[in-house]
């Protein structure tokens, strides 16, 4: 197999993986702090993608520029969702949280179907089909911008959690729920805020993702699953872990497609998941429980 082919595929895999990572980051934040299984994660990304499609279609606004307002809108949705619907479920058993979010996901998917119909939508930006040639490697322009944007959002998120008081308070909540309550943090509000941040993150990922793939109402569940796999591979609650997991899954899918049967490449993400769960259940960068 020619080396430049492998290199091309690997570069594409890593770039796509970064976007996957950003999507999973949102899940990791929610999961790590609120301890709620957001089974509507992929559906929330679909919401962000449709927002980007509408803004592009009606006003010609570039999805990458719309990243901030869409993320803000998703923040509000996430905040409201957590403070009204999900908060009473925080101490309920996992399966009832799961059922609640399955219901939310069902409403989202089919609400989108009612609103937008079943056709695939996309944003045809002017640079949609550009690519750069660097030596033997052809880099897809959209994929490159998408990966850079994902990286930028991730850095902003890291900064938020490390530097701002709210971010620190949220981390305190995650580390020690009881302690956070004792020192007088408003845990309910912080949970809602965290869910909002996670939703904003996946909304931003949606804006970026819409450049890479077409959106239909039905794509949500597959991405929910993908986000889960990435978060668990990377390590629950570890933000660098989510990015690393994304890159790993993106890269392994790409290389598996190259070296094995392409239609079976989806198996590899699950195979990696099973291996990680068995050999290092806390995830690659996760702390031991």
């Amino acid at each position, binding site marked *: 197999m020619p080396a430049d082919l492998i290199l091309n595929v690997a570069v594409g895999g890593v770039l796509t993986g970064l976007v996957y990572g950003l999507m999973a980051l949102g899940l990791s934040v929610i999961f790590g702090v609120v301890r709620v*299984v957001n089974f509507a994660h992929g559906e929330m990304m679909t919401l962000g993608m449709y927002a980007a499609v509408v803004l592009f279609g009606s006003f010609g606004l570039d999805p990458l520029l719309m990243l901030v307002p869409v993320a803000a809108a998703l923040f509000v949705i996430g905040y409201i969702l957590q403070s009204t*619907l999900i908060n*009473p479920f925080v101490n*309920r058993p*996992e*399966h*009832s949280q*799961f*059922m*609640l979010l*399955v*219901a*939310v*996901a*069902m*409403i989202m*998917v*089919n*609400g*989108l*179907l*009612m609103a937008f119909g*079943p056709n695939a939508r996309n944003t045809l930006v002017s640079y949609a089909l550009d690519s750069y040639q660097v030596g033997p490697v052809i880099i897809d322009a959209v994929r490159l911008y998408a990966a850079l944007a994902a990286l930028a959002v991730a850095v902003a998120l890291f900064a938020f959690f490390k530097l701002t008081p709210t971010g620190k308070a949220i981390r305190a909540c995650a580390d020690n729920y009881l302690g956070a309550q004792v020192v007088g943090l408003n845990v309910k509000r912080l949970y809602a805020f965290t869910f909002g941040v996670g939703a904003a993150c996946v909304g931003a990922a949606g804006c970026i993702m819409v450049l890479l793939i077409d959106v239909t*109402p039905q794509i949500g*569940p597959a991405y929910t*699953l993908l986000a*889960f*796999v990435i978060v*668990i591979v990377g390590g629950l609650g570890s933000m660098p872990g989510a990015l690393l997991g994304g890159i790993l899954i993106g890269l392994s899918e790409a290389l598996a497609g190259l070296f094995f*049967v392409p*239609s*079976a490449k*989806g*198996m590899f993400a*699950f*195979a990696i*998941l*099973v291996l990680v*769960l*068995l*050999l290092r*259940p806390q995830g690659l960068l996760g702390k031991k429980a």
Partner: protein
Amino acid sequence: MSRMLRRLGEGVSNRALVALGLVFAALLLAPLVSNGYVLSVLIIALYYAYAGQAWNVMMGFCGQLSLGHSLYVGVAAYAAAIFFVKWNVPPVIGMFAAIAVAMAFGAVIGFLAFRFSVSGVYFALLTIAFAEFTRIGFDHFTWAGGSGGFFLKVEDRAADLITLRGPPIMFYYVMLALTALAFLFCRMLTQSRVGYYWFAIREDQEAAQALGINVFRYKMLAVIVSSGMTSLAGVFFAFYYNNLFPEQIFSMARSIELILGPIIGGLGTLFGPILGAFVLTVLADLVTEVLVFTGYDIPGVKQVFYGLCLAVVVIWLPLGIWPPLKRRLGLEGRS
């Protein structure tokens, strides 16, 4: 034998026994007043009631959340169908192969998960991962049709229980018998020592361990019993539908459909899975009916309504519909 029977009825009020008898009699007679369509809906409801009961053993009794039960349905369906189509082995024998295959899958997943103490959400995800892995595997298993599908020959002939070929009414009674047997079997389990061990593990695994229960062994047993029971739903599926497509049978949506019944009906209860399956199936049809009648049948609106109903039940009836209903009907046991 009589001791076992007495034990089955222990702590059950006469009222409850009569009510159960009436429900069973109603189900026995239902086909006489049903047309083809209603019969097909009832068959689906019984199918979900049975499969939900099987899933309930693992989650409701032992507290292990599996979101990949379509895996057991799928491998068992394929096993029985392959035996029948490729080697002419009728399902009455082939079902043992199906049970064995499903139990083997269950045992492998259980062993890996429990040995490495994977639990909770992680365990649930592991079960999804195995189901998805198998789905893609079967897509490439060209000997059994791959993603092109595996087909059983449909013959128009009188009911034959050996080969499971016959009219829908035969499938109805087969499914009814399975559901009734599963109900009795689960009742027996909950009255047995194994059942008590499972409840202990469900409530507090560490305490159960401290009491000297071999947690690993009893969790394994729950997975194996549950997968074995689920496999019969798969055999039924293969011979009732006659077409198997990996994309359909192994899909995650299938696993979720399967567990909605017990969760809505009442997790860990015996009658909950049955009630939940019937409520959901009837609700789905009622909604379609109303939508068509009022002219609001836009694609998606039904599923939105379905989602809303689900949310309502989960929010306001956290134990499911059966426990409060049981109290209301005065069917609580004497204890």
